[in-house]
């Protein structure tokens, strides 16, 4: 598979065409905006957090296929997870995207689940920020930050 095919796999294209959980959430008790000033990608992540568990999560925004698919897959993956589980997943996804190896080698599929499909991004340094934008944003939403998260 070429690097390009690895980046734009059918699952990613599908999430781009029909993003999951793509809606505003009126009853969200956590919300953050993310912005990539280099390219203008922006995303708003909404979270309904109850007793430390992500009951519901959604997003809206504009961006490239990678940022939209990453945000869509993230919401699908994080629903039902605890804050601590979300944080762990954030760390593992971040390592996968930046190509940073774990102490036991690169993160394997058990650590990032279906999100392993995004691993092709690490070969495109200019696109890492597109894929990580939603993750930085949810991280700041969970921390209760009200400001705008920037990839810079």
């Amino acid at each position, binding site marked *: 598979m*070429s*690097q*390009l095919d690895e*980046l*734009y796999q059918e699952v990613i*294209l599908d999430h781009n065409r029909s993003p999951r959980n793509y809606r505003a959430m009126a009853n969200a008790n956590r919300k953050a905006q993310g912005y990539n000033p*280099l*390219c*203008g*990608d*922006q995303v708003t992540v909404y979270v309904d957090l109850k007793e430390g568990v992500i009951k519901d999560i959604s997003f809206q925004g*504009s*961006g*490239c*296929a*990678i940022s939209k698919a990453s945000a869509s897959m993230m919401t699908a993956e994080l629903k039902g997870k605890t804050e601590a589980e979300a944080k762990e997943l954030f760390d593992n996804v971040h390592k996968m995207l930046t190509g940073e190896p774990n102490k036991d080698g690169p993160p394997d599929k058990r650590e990032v689940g279906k999100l392993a499909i995004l691993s092709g991004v690490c070969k*495109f340094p*200019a*696109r890492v920020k*597109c894929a990580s934008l939603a993750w930085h944003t949810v991280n700041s939403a969970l921390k209760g930050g009200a400001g705008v998260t920037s990839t810079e």
Partner: protein
Amino acid sequence: MKVAHEIATPGRLIETLDISKIRADFPILKQKVHDKPLVYLDNGATSQKPQSVIDALNRYYSTENSNIHRGVHYLSERATAAYEAARQKIKSFVNARSEREIIFVRGTTEAINLVAQSYGRTFLKKGDEIIISAMEHHSNIVPWQMLCEQTGACLRVIPINHDGELVLDEYRRLLGEKTKLVSVTHVSNALGTIAPVKDIVRLAHARNVPVLLDGAQAIPHLKVDVQELGCDFYAFSGHKLFGPTGVGILYGRTELLDAMPPYQGGGDMISLVTFEKTHYNVLPYKFEAGTPHIAGGIGLAAAIDYLATLDWKQVMAHEHDLLAYATSALSSIDGLRIIGTAKEKVGVMSFVFDHVHAHDVGTILDQEGVAVRAGHHCAMPVMQRFGVPATTRASFALYNTRAEIDALVRGIHRALKVFK
């Protein structure tokens, strides 16, 4: 390779540019990217450098490197002479009246900041108005916003129409008693539009309002004659003109520059310093504090020398041919929308698709060896005007060819196939 565009003149056919010879002068163009020949279409961001410019930098550091305007020794004299010869060359290139009007700066951005802070803070006050346009690069917006915050002046914006052309009638309406400065781009970086700068200058001067032109995108494509343009300030960068990064020029009319205080304080910009009082140096040194980018200035002069070996009419005809060819080729792609369709344009093609984001197009083109820019091009208000988050931009230089535009089109088709 000969390009198809040939100009007939009475009695003979003017030779067209020998593009393969020009390409051979730019060593970077020979390389492969992702196993494909490099197709460099990001000239709006920065241009490539001919061997003669690279050699000039090398020669300076190998044989002349020394600080200027202070040494009594041989090398310092040579470096000073080379740097001042560069200033002379740039003066002739833009047809300034005197080399005193040519200020070396880091680039267009610093030139505009210099005028905003030195001229603006001295002569503008609360309630005054500065006119810019809706197609400015951030570097011709933010320095004025900072000045407005400092002085209480306010910013007025000439709108653009759907083709990306300035609406001159609106400019006429904006010009008024409160207008104290006009600062507009000569050529839009995101759209390629050539602004009607002579009209802009004429209308401003009728009210005694000075005009700064941001020439960053114009200088590699148009013959710039500051006296013919009539502008009061003209700013441009060396690196977009096939010269080094980190050096640029502010042209200013002597009367204005003389009336302005220094921008930065330091060495070289003074004639006498005591703890009680400092006397500033004469033009242009008053605005050149600190050791400048000496090699950069010399490299920029080498770029101008290189351009002097080419026939400018042929260069402009070739670039016009590239733009016409690209416009026709891209227009025939289903779903592609060109952003920036002004009648007067340089070789810039900004485009969008409804269902494919500019970044994805950029990444796929890169895999084909085609270098373009994807994003907001530091002109977010332009993106907002056209209701798009970003565009893909191919920007041409004199060394580009029709075959490279064909490669661009093939790359776009590949992107469309991925996102079918």
